[in-house]
Every structure is written in structure tokens, then in C-alpha cells.
């Protein structure tokens, strides 16, 4: 729908010359708001350019349109400029071109100034045609190249995997392996080698780590990775950081720090992930100096790395004072995940945060860490909280609540929105048997569809 509309729409352009013709020379000077160009000037140019006289235009639509379009060009570019351009082109043709080309060139120049719009459209068509042909050639070429490249990579990947696994499992020695690794100086082959080694490093553990890193160094692949890091392109930087961290951690150590606060989010995220791996003694230390955002995607990435490398768990309370809200929220989630109960006073204090997400994580922490001292605080906050946080408060009471909370929950069950009522019913039901009795008593006073609520909350699938 989008482009082909142009097909018919542009047809309308055909009326342009008629339109100009329709206005006539008398009104033309005003119609564009440009009155500097006089008719006599334009006629003069027409004569110079070898066109027919003004009187003959009305009988021939092409010529009349030509005259009008010529005038349009004069208005756009200025008579003097056009004259000068024509003169320059003629001079160039006369002085620089060989005789056999001169005549053709001068004719083209002359025709261009007689029929400027026709010339322009033909030029545009030729440009488009050239574009189409170029794209088709590119398509043909790149398709061939891509297929060839894919086949090439597959062949060499299999070959390298066989040789390197042979070396890693002591079937062959390094000298033999080194001879068997063909075309190792070719850029594409080096990237295949790096990819194969990365796969090995991710899938093999123990002594293989050092062996794989040795291969990486022996083949001099670290120079490629360093080149990538120094590249101005962010995606190359990321690849370089990743390769170096995985296959040459010692070399990566010095490169990572400058990128921890890099302006590009992907470079920054990769550097932060690398930092975790390279600083096992205090993996989250970089959070203290973080001046830029620490988005959820990066948080997931660093947590995943942290878990897979089974690193030492730091006390996340030290990051709760960070000015960076992303860092604070991440720390709260980590405190909850690692059950760092000793941090309860700080967590309770953060309930006052103006950020909804921070308060949400606090309530969840109170629930998961069973911080009973936060019970009254979250109840007080309930009327001022968002819907999502209100539900989280009711859920928390199910775990940390007691009989003192029954009135509060009853009130929600009677007056709250359906989800809040359901959760209040669940909390009442599961806090103690007395809660269940309270529900039954309430239902006797008024028909609250308690059976349905109970059926809902006791079905673990809901």
C-alpha cells in the first residue's frame, strides 16, 4: 500500500506544466511571490538557449510546457545562475573535451537548458533504474557470498572442533594440532576459532579452562580481541570484551574498568558483566562507582553470571544508600534472594521511598524475609499505596500476619476490589483457623459469595 500509491499520485504531476501555462506570464510573477524575474529576462534566456518564440507556445503543448518549466527553473535557481552554469558547461566542453565528444556534450547541455524538467525526470528515471539494477546485482552477489560464507564457516568450525577437542582430550599434541589448524591467520578463520574456543570454555569446566586459555594465547587470538575492544564501534567493543573476559581473563582485567560507565548501554552492560567474573573477591564493587543507569536486563545478566560462577555473596546493604535508584532496587532484590535478614532496619526505612518500585521490593522483602517488625508499617501504608503494592501488602500479611490483622483484612474483604478481596480472603484463611471462622461469620451476616472465594483460594492452580 505504501509506496505504490506514488505510481498514480505522481501521474498528477503531469498537470504541473499545464498549471503553469494556465496562469500565463502576467500573473506568474505574483503567483510564487517572486517578482524579481521579468518576462523579458526569461524570454531572452529562451532565445539564447535556442527555443522557439513565445507566440508559438500555445499551439504546441510540449513546447509551451517547456517554456513554462524553464521559467520555473529560472525562478528557483535564478536567471543569472542558470546563464552562468550554461556558459561554464559550454566553456568546459569546448576547452576540455575531445572533438568527437564535444558535439554530444554541447548538445546535451543545450537540450538540458531547453527542456529542464524533461531532463530532470529522465535523469531521475535513470537513477532509479541504476538503483534497481545495482540492488539486484547486490542481492545476487550477497546471496552467493552469504551461502558460501555459511558453508565455509561450517566446514572450518567442524574441522577446528575436531582438532581442538583432540588436543584437549590428549589425542594429539599441540605441535600436531597447530599444524592441522589451517588458515589460522585469516580473519574469518580466526573468528571461527574464537567462536569454537568460546563454546568449549562455556561447556567445559575444571582443568580445561587453563588449556583453552592457553590455546587462545598460543594462536595469538587475544590481539584480535584487543583490536575489537579499541574499535570505535560499540558492537565490536562488546564482542572484544566478551572474548577477552572468557578466554583471556588476565588480559581483560585492565581493559574493563574504563567501560563500566560507558555511554553506550551495551558496552556498559558487557563491562559490568565482565567485572563480576574478573573480580570474584568483590564482584559488585562497581555498583558504588556507577554513575549511569543499571537496567533490569543488565541486572539479569550479571546475576546470571554471578550464579553460574558461584561467587562469594557480598552484603548488599552497602549499596542501599546508592544514589542510583536502579542499584538500590537491585540490592533489595538481592537481599531478598540471598535472605540477608540482618538488613531489616534499612529495608523498613526504604518503605518511605517515593519510588513505587522500591516500595514494592521492600514489601516483598518484608514478606520473604519474614520481617515481622514491618507488619504495622505496611498496614499503615496500605491506603496510600498503588494497587499493585496493596496486593503485595495483603500477600505479605498472609506470611507475617496474626490475629491482630483480622480487622484490617476483614475490612479489605468487605470493601476492597475483587483481587484485594480474594487476597484478603486467602490471608485470613491461611493465617489461622480463627481467620477461617471469621470469614464464615462474615458470610452469615451478608451473602459474600464466600464459597466461591474459598474455592478460588484453595485451588493451587489459581
Amino acid at each position, binding site marked *: *500500500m*505504501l*509506496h*505504490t*500509491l*506514488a*505510481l*498514480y*499520485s*505522481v*501521474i*498528477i*504531476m*503531469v*498537470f*504541473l*506544466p*499545464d*498549471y503553469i501555462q*494556465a496562469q500565463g506570464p502576467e500573473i506568474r510573477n505574483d503567483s510564487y511571490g517572486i517578482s524579481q524575474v521579468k518576462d523579458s529576462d526569461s524570454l531572452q534566456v529562451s532565445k539564447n538557449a535556442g527555443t522557439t518564440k513565445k507566440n508559438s507556445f500555445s499551439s504546441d503543448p*510540449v513546447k509551451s510546457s517547456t517554456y513554462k518549466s524553464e521559467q520555473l527553473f529560472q525562478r528557483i535557481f535564478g536567471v543569472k545562475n542558470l546563464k552562468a552554469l550554461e556558459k561554464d558547461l559550454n566553456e568546459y566542453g569546448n576547452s576540455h573535451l575531445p572533438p568527437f565528444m564535444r558535439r554530444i556534450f554541447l548538445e546535451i547541455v543545450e537540450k538540458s537548458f531547453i527542456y529542464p*524538467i*524533461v531532463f530532470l*525526470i*529522465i535523469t531521475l*528515471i535513470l537513477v*532509479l533504474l541504476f538503483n*534497481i539494477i545495482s*540492488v*539486484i546485482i*547486490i*542481492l545476487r552477489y*550477497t546471496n*552467493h557470498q552469504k551461502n558460501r560464507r555459511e558453508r565455509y564457516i561450517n566446514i572450518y568450525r567442524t574441522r577446528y572442533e575436531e582438532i581442538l577437542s583432540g588436543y584437549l582430550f590428549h589425542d594429539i599434541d599441540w605441535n600436531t594440532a597447530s599444524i592441522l589448524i589451517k588458515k589460522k591467520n585469516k580473519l574469518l578463520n580466526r573468528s571461527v576459532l574464537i567462536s569454537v574456543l568460546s563454546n568449549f570454555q562455556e561447556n567445559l569446566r575444571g582443568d580445561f579452562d587453563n588449556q583453552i586459555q592457553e590455546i587462545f594465547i598460543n594462536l595469538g587470538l587475544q590481539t584480535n580481541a584487543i583490536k575489537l575492544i579499541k574499535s570505535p*564501534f*560499540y*558492537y565490536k567493543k*562488546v*564482542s572484544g570484551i*566478551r572474548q577477552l573476559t572468557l578466554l583471556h581473563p588476565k588480559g581483560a582485567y585492565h581493559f574493563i574498568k574504563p567501560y563500566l560507565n560507558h555511554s553506550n*548501554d551495551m558496552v556498559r552492560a558487557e563491562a559490568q558483566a565482565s567485572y563480576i567474573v574478573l573480580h570474584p573477591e568483590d564482584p559488585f564493587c562497581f555498583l558504588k562507582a556507577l554513575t549511569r*543507569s543499571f*537496567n*533490569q*536486563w543488565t*541486572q*539479569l545478566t550479571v*546475576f*546470571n*553470571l554471578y550464579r553460574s560462577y558461584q561467587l562469594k555473596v557480598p552484603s548488599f546493604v552497602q549499596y542501599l544508600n546508592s544514589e542510583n535508584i536502579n542499584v538500590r532496587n537491585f540490592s533489595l532484590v538481592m537481599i531478598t*534472594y540471598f535472605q540477608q535478614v540482618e538488613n531489616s532496619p534499612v529495608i523498613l526505612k526504604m518503605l518511605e521511598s517515593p519510588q513505587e518500585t522500591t516500595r514494592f521490593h521492600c514489601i516483598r522483602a518484608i514478606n520473604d524475609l519474614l520481617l515481622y517488625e514491618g507488619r504495622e508499617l505496611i498496614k499503615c501504608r496500605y491506603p496510600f499505596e498503588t494497587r*499493585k503494592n496493596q496486593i503485595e501488602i495483603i500477600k505479605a500479611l498472609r506470611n507475617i500476619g496474626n490475629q491482630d490483622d483480622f480487622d484490617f483484612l476483614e475490612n479489605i474483604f468487605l470493601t476492597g476490589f*475483587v*483481587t484485594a478481596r*480474594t487476597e484478603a480472603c486467602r490471608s485470613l484463611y491461611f493465617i489461622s483457623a480463627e481467620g477461617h471462622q471469621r470469614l464464615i461469620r462474615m458470610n452469615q451476616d451478608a451473602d459474600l459469595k464466600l464459597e*466461591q472465594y474459598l474455592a*478460588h483460594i484453595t*485451588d493451587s*492452580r*489459581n
Partner: protein
Amino acid sequence: MEIFRTIFETSFFYYAICILGAYVVLAIISAQTLKRNINRSKITHYDAIISSPFSPLITVIAPAYNESMTIVENIKALLALYYPSFEIIVVNDGSKDDSLEKTIKAFDLEKVTYMIDYRIPCKEIVAIYKSRDKAYNNITVIDKLNGGKADALNAGINLAKGDYFISIDVDSIIDPYALQILIKPFLEETDRKVIATGGVVRIANSCKIEGGRLVEINVPDKFLPRCQVVEYNRAFLMGRLAWSRMDGLLLISGALGIFDKEIAIACGGYYTKTVGEDMELVVRMRKYMAEKKIKYKVDYVSDPLCWTEAPTSLKVLGSQRNRWTRGTIDTLFLHWNIFLNPKYGFMGMISHPFWVLFEWLAPIIEVIGVLYFLTIAIMGEPNWPYFFLLVTFAYFFAITFSTYAILFDHLAYHRYKKKRMIIKLILTAWVEPLLYHPCVVYWSLRGNYDYFIRKKKSWGKMTRVGFTKAS
């Protein structure tokens, strides 16, 4: 008369210049965005989200109406999505066939009592089903009275537990990696709230499908779907990408889109009285955020994540395009106060006017132009040499645009690997402006006629042939 003619012709002239200019600009921005997206996707690893306990819960809502033939297979395909935390809500929108019975049987479902929080109004929910089998623990089936796709989606949103929901067509094939790719923009952004993300939809005709998964990609054998391949390439890779880059995207295809649930609910969910509910929701969500003065973003993923069956008959295709036109008009008029309203930023000043001028009015202006030209031609006034020159120019412009769309797709994804596939597409691009485009214009006009004169609000029939099964 002369003055009228002058104004008329001048307007057409400038309109044509604007539309050509706009498409060139969109193509350039799309190319840059595509390059950027490809570079980013090369270095993105999804292992973290796949194995993380903190991956946000996503609700996949699949409305189904008379999908008896494919529903079981399609739900099974959804179950195979690679994402650690998602639930599937299948909404049986009052099907007249045995869609529900087949689903109950296939997944061992039973009726459960569920306290529904009707945060968005929808037609009565008759029953809710859950599976006895723990393997299907994340499937919920809603049986409700028929109310249309928008109403079914609203019912699904009411039951959704996730912070994000994905609306899909149950008859489309979703890429197994779609959820992890679509959720990424929501997790990456810290300065602005991402309210929705769309993905590229591709044509699956003649492709081979096995167990609800695409196993072999082919160019459609039939001409009509092939034209749609070229058309979709243009629309997704040379249009929407650019709009998303400029933060002016108004449409996320109903076949695949992920939304922030709370924002969607705050806006009132899908509007049930329109046939263009997908576009309408995006516009309303954007409008809501602009009015609340919250920084937001509607993102777009350039990876092809959804494969759909394109109509193969003129009748069905016509009905689909008629509906799209009515949906567009409906949305544009429902939110007319956005038009050239600086309060709504880029959407108000550029996106909405663009849709009005170059999406809704384009076919109308085009037909008026053609009729006007025919009148002039009969009267013997046109400048024929110019006419042929300009027609040639317009034709080559159209082909250039389509060829670039094919090139973009090829460079970015290299889906069509065989030479003959690319040749087929290029040949289609040469023929499409002459044969396919006039039909599209006609259907758009019919859409306008049905909307303004017949006041038609129904979807129309959409019959499908079914995908090719892999042997």
C-alpha cells in the same frame, strides 16, 4: 474555474512530492535502524533471561473463534515457547464449532471457580478451565459469550497475572524465541517507560510447518501471497522501523504485540466497537501517557517473530483490507484531537497527520487523480510526453522501493537462501504495482464506502486454507 483548477492541480503536485519525499526519508531511517538492530542482536545473549528467577511473568492471550481445526496444535506450539515464566490464556470467544471441546479433551481441562476482577468491561465469562495435568499448569481457557476479538482480549487481560501481556492470533505461528526478544526493550529502558513493543510479521504461505513450528521457509507459490510478502517487507522493514526510531509508531500488529498491562488497563483496554483494535489501543496508550506527562516509548523489534497465513483469494484479501481501512479511519477519528496538537508531541504533529494524509486519504486522492486525469484525457488536453515520462518515473520509484525492501530483508535475515526465491520476489515487485496495487486501492475505497455510507462495523469473513505440513 481556472483558479479552482489551479488550486486542485497544485495540491496534487505537492501531495505527490510530499508522499515520495516521506517514503524516501522513512526508507533511509529504516535502513539505519535496521543496521543498528542487527548489530545489537548479534551481541545480545538471552541466556540470562532464560535461566533467571527474576524474568517477568508474561501472559500470552490467544483469542479463538471457530478455530477447531488448528487450536490444539497451536496451543501446543505456544507451550513450547522458550521463556521461563509465562502463562497462556486461550479465550474461546463463543465459538460455534467444537474448539472448546477439543481443547478440553486435549489438555485434560476442568471447570474451576475463579473470582474474576473485571477491571475492563467484557462480555460475560461463562466458565474458566484449568488442566488437571500439571504439565499444562500454565494454561487457562476462558469460555465467554461472543463479543469479538477486542472483547476476548479484554477478558484475557482481566485474568492475566503477568505485568506484561502478549496479544496473538491463535492461527499465527510465533517464533519460539519471541517472548525473550519482545520483553527485552521493557527491561532495557530506564529513563522512559516502555508501554508496548511490536514485532515483524511474515507470510508463512508455502512454508513448511511441523508441530506448530516453522521448519522450512519458502516464497509463496501463489501470486497474491507473494505480493503480500513484498508488501509486508516494505511496511515492516521500511516503514514501522523508521516510525519506531522516531518514536511515532501508531500501529502494532494484532498478530503479535506485547503491552504493559497496567497502562493498557488504565486506558480501558481494547476498544470493542472498532475493527482496528490493535492500532486504537496503541494510540490510546500513547495518548494516556502524553496526557499524564510520563516519558514513554513504543518500541519495535525488527526480528521476524510471527508467521501468519496470508489470504490467497481476492475475496478474503479484499475483506481483510476493507477491515484494515475501516479500523484506520475509526482510530484516526476517535482520536482526532491529536491531529496537529503539539501537546501530543511527535505523534500529534507528525504521525497522526501522516496517517490521515498518506494512509487514509491516499487511495481516495489517488482515485480522484486518476478520474481527473481521465477527464482531461478524454477532453484531449493532457501533455502526453510528460505523462509517459512521469508514469515511468513513478513505476520505477515503486520498484526501487520494493527492491530495497527485499534487499533489506535479505541482508538482515537471509531467510530466502535460494536464488530462485529472490528472483521470484523481484519479479513480483515488478508486476505488483500494475496488478496488485489497483486492487488494494479498490478495497480501501470499499472500506471508506462501508465505513461512511454503510456504517459497517463487522469483521467480515476470514477463511484460511491452512499451512503446509512438513512431511
